[in-house]
């Protein structure tokens, strides 16, 4: 069992571990992108940490504080770029958690800012973002076409001066997913941020549903454990704002026809993080359980753990492989998928023999 998960459930246990165990916690947390979460919990629960390792947490906190500040600045830039016309956008995922100032957003690292826009306005919004300095990165024509034809988001945009990355979604699921529904069906709420103004995010219950749907249609789970920890924290935090949140989530899940994904979200948030609200939700949603639940348990419990050498096993590799194919099949039918994966494999091999692929000068002091 992962030592990290044990401590995320009950940080007080960290008070009594050796430097050697700290090393393991440390590695698991870094590899799972949960170092910030750990740092936050240590501070919140007033855990004693050995002076030898203090600097790691101190340093990480500075980095995530800077990232948070940067994100808030980007919200402001987005407001300026997009508010001049009727087009509206909503912050998704990590950005939304920051906008709501949720506890668990402190220390949570993210690589890009995700926004949701209206598909009909996508062209106009892209144009305005370009004027504001958000440019397309280098991308193969094939990838660009693939994104635009099948995906629910456009290829990531990079800001020319600030190097921040923007992911523009115009939908929730790829249109080939059989549970595909229009993003217009989501409910939104607005929130005022100091020095930024008003921003929009999904309504609380839809925020949870969006995260759940995203996680359980993925094909790669590098941040799988982090995402489960997010769902766990999000549920607890939302409950403080709305005592009836679990019932509201279930109601919405049924209406949007994604109760299966929400079922998984409850199940693994309960099984991995021991979340009591998820346990309650699971009972209410029992009708949405899949036929061969033990298969799902076998694969998901094996991927929702830190991706470190000492926890690797045959089962983990198998689970990853199964979920890779499941994710791709959910995204598109085989007749589209096979040519796509062949094409990608070819591109990867060609790239690996490209002589130019060498160390990046600027990364090295």
């Amino acid at each position: 069992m992962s030592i990290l998960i044990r401590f995320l459930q009950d940080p007080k246990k960290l008070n009594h571990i050796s430097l050697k165990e700290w090393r393991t916690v440390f590695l698991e947390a870094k590899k799972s992108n949960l170092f910030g979460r750990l740092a936050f919990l240590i501070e919140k629960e007033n855990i004693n940490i050995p002076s030898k390792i203090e600097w790691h947490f101190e340093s990480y906190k500075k980095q995530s504080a800077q990232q948070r500040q940067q994100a808030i600045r980007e919200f402001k830039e987005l407001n300026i770029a997009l508010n001049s016309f009727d087009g509206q956008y909503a912050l998704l995922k990590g950005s939304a958690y920051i906008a709501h100032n949720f506890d668990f957003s402190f220390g949570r690292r993210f690589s890009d800012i995700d926004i949701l826009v209206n598909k009909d306005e996508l062209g106009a919004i892209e144009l305005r973002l370009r004027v504001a300095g958000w440019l397309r990165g280098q991308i193969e024509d094939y990838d660009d076409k693939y994104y635009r034809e099948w995906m629910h988001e456009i290829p990531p945009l990079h800001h020319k001066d600030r190097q921040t990355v923007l992911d523009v979604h115009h939908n929730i699921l790829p249109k080939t997913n059989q549970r595909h529904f229009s993003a217009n069906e989501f409910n939104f709420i607005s929130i005022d941020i100091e020095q930024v103004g008003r921003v929009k995010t999904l309504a609380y219950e839809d925020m949870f549903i969006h995260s759940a749907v995203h996680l359980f249609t993925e094909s790669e789970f590098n941040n799988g454990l982090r995402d489960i920890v997010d769902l766990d924290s999000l549920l607890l935090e939302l409950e403080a704002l709305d005592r009836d949140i679990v019932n509201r989530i279930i109601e919405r899940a049924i209406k949007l026809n994604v109760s299966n994904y929400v079922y998984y979200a409850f199940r693994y948030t309960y099984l991995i993080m021991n979340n009591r609200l998820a346990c309650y939700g699971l009972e209410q949603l029992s009708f949405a359980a899949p036929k061969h639940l033990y298969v799902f348990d076998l694969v998901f419990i094996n991927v929702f753990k830190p991706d470190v050498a000492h926890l690797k096993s045959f089962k983990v590799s198998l689970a990853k492989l199964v979920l890779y194919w499941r994710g791709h099949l959910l995204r598109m039918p085989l007749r589209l998928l096979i040519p796509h994966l062949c094409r990608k494999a070819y591109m990867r091999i060609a790239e690996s023999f490209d002589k130019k692929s060498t160390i990046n000068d600027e990364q090295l002091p």
Partner: protein
Amino acid sequence: MFSRTFALGPFNFKINSQIIKVKTELERLYKDFVPVADADFIDFDINITQPPNIRRWLRPQVDFIVDEFKPFKPLPLNHAYPMLEWGMNWCIASNAHHFFIMHAAAIEKNNKVIVLPAQSGAGKSTLSAALSYNGWRLFSDELALFSLKNKLLYPLARPINLKNDSIDIIRNYIPNAVFSEVVHDTHKGTVALLKPPLDSVKQVNIENPLACFVFPKYVENSPVRLKACSVEQAFSSIIEQSFNYHILGKEAFELVSYYLRNVKAYTLEYSDFIQANDALSELV
């Protein structure tokens, strides 16, 4: 497979590799560093390994992996040791934000540190190599660490990374110098690492305050020219050569302002080590 641990100033490193060349170089250049005690915490656990793919036989490569994370693409196998050194720099520069970190050489005399910030190629490694074997203590040839807590500088005393012509210049200037093998065709050209002086390594845990900033520039055949530099100019050059100013924000601004209110900044043009040594000795 072999493993070595050593404490480099405030950081504990562990290096694991099966590559014999890496082992040889570590034994040669890091011999005087103190190993990390068994019960102590390893800050960076590094593997230098060959990627397990078919290219192993075609065009062998090497990977730098720290805490099971691979920050760079692989390099040709014979770059293994320089890659380790660059990777160790990366570990410090991208993680140790309890320091304000500059791309600079730093040397100490009379318990005062001169920081020499400069772009690659300006000759800061060459100058710090020459001086650290002539009466100065080596803090670092690449990374100057300014503590945000006590405003002191922290030494690393790591091997000095010399490039191209400076390898032979230093070989001639310091006859007993111990070098790593010379590696050609890296992204920095031809490189070799110079073993740090024993005294510098022995004093790696002694921190000292800043004496001044000196922006060095090697100018062929030029007499030594040390000129005071305006605060504005110094400030912008310092930010330009800093790795984490953007992360520390206000904290870094306040620290740099503090230094520039209390110490001077100079530009230095030189071509002769003895003249440069004399000029810098006046400043401490």
